[in-house]
């Protein structure tokens, strides 16, 4: 407790207050002036003691805090210089972090574009090989052009169709021969008909001869025998002729069957050969057309691949911006370091000039203000390297780990 006899503001205030309340009482009691003065002093002191006892802490604090006289100008300047000097390394740290991140991103892009260029080149080579048909075929190592392959295959197919046509012509020849055979058989059949007629007539004649021989009596007996033999010959001739005609008929039927089959075969062969030739021609035309398109596509791919390579070269050049960026940022950082050094020197000199003048006590407020503008953990980490004790507004551990950057409420 302070010395109650020390004159301070409250005692000065207590005296008139007590006087104002006590004076009417004294007048009423009739005490003399000296006694009045003594009474005044004691009562005001007692009042001060009571007030101090009851509200002492609050008064002391109020004396220190709210009622703080404003700092002189140099102190504020020192504080601001100190804050600025301490913030510059943090800002430099943020700049370095950004440059490092951009470096890494640029290198990643560089690598990916290089991979793209390599793959584009490989695809272009593969397409060119496919179009020209180069490469090992079968067990050998010979190289064949697709066009030459198509031409060889076309020749092969032409040979096959030619042979089919030859077979067709051959079968048509056979057909003609069977037709002639049929004609011959018909002719023979006609001849046999004549023979049958002759035999029949001969048989009739022999019958008549037998009748006449019978009329002649004994003299006609020899004639009757001859007539009988002639009749037998006529009968045998007729029988042979009939048999031959039957056989000829069978032959003619067989020939007709063969002819029919041959006609069917040549008909089918003919239409198949025509269709095959037509289809083969169409197929080869399609192959040739497709190959031409493939060659055109490969040429286009090749051109595009070269264009892509050029574009990627330009990208490589553009990515060099990162080097330029780094250098320019480093120049800014160097300048900021220089400014920081100057600020510290000024702070020191001002401190000396004003002789141990204390800076304002709230030295990390600038850090809290800086932190309140940050939105990323990386920024806060850099700040904490320089100001570990900064009370971050709404501080809390980062919610998301790697791969946990999506949350649904």
């Amino acid at each position, binding site marked *: 407790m302070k010395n109650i006899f020390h004159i301070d503001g409250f005692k000065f205030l207590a005296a008139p207050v007590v006087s104002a309340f006590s004076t009417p009482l004294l007048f009423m009691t009739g005490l003399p002036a000296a006694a009045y003065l003594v009474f005044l002093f004691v009562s005001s002191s007692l009042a001060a003691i009571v007030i101090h006892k009851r509200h002492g802490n609050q008064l002391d604090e109020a004396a220190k805090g709210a009622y703080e006289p404003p700092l002189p100008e140099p102190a504020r300047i020192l504080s601001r210089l100190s804050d600025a000097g301490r913030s510059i390394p943090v800002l430099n740290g943020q700049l370095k972090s950004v440059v490092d991140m951009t470096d890494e991103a640029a290198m990643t892009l560089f690598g990916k574009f290089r991979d793209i260029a390599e793959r584009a080149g490989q695809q272009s080579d593969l397409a060119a090989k496919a179009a020209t048909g180069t490469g090992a075929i079968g067990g050998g190592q010979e190289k064949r052009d697709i066009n030459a392959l198509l031409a060889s295959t076309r020749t092969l197919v032409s040979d096959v169709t030619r042979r089919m046509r030859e077979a067709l012509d051959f079968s048509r020849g056979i057909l003609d021969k069977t037709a002639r055979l049929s004609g011959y058989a018909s002719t023979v059949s006609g001849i046999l008909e004549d023979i049958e007629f002759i035999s029949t007539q001969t048989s009739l004649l022999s019958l008549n001869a037998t009748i006449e021989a019978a009329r002649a009596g004994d003299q006609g007996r020899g004639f009757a025998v001859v007539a009988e033999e002639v009749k037998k010959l006529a009968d045998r001739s007729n029988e042979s002729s009939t048999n031959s005609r039957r056989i000829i008929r069978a032959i003619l039927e067989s020939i007709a069957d063969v002819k029919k089959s041959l006609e069917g075969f040549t008909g089918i062969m003919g239409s198949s050969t025509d269709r095959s030739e037509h289809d083969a021609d169409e197929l080869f035309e399609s192959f040739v057309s497709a190959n031409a398109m493939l060659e055109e596509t490969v040429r286009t791919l090749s051109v595009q691949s070269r264009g892509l390579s050029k574009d990627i070269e330009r990208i490589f050049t553009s990515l060099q911006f990162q080097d330029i960026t780094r250098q320019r940022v480093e120049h800014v950082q160097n300048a900021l370091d220089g400014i920081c050094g100057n600020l510290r020197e000024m702070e020191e000199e001002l401190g000396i000039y004003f002789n141990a003048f204390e800076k304002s006590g709230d030295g990390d407020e600038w850090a809290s203000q800086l932190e309140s503008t940050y*939105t*990323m*953990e990386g920024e806060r980490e850099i700040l904490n390297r320089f100001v570990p004790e900064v009370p971050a507004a*709404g501080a*809390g551990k980062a919610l998301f780990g790697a791969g946990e*950057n*999506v*949350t*649904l409420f």
Partner: protein
Amino acid sequence: MLEAENGKDAYDKLAGAAVDLVITDLNMPVMDGLQLIRELRGLKQYRFTPILMLTTESQESRKTDGKNAGATGWIVKPFTPEQLLTTVSKVLR
């Protein structure tokens, strides 16, 4: 699809429309993402519309602010296209 340059622009465009999904950044000029969400939730047509926050902010306290403002989800940059599409598919179901 509507696009806006800041929160106020977004609100003005959305107030006269009725979209199925809103994707917004947090730190925007004129009106930030949290204020935008609060304003939209006050509109009848957006009371239940999915609203996703797309931001660099990863602090839990900020995420809580978003949830309290009415956000449906919180996506921290950087994100892959697949993550965004998966999240959009989930909230639109």
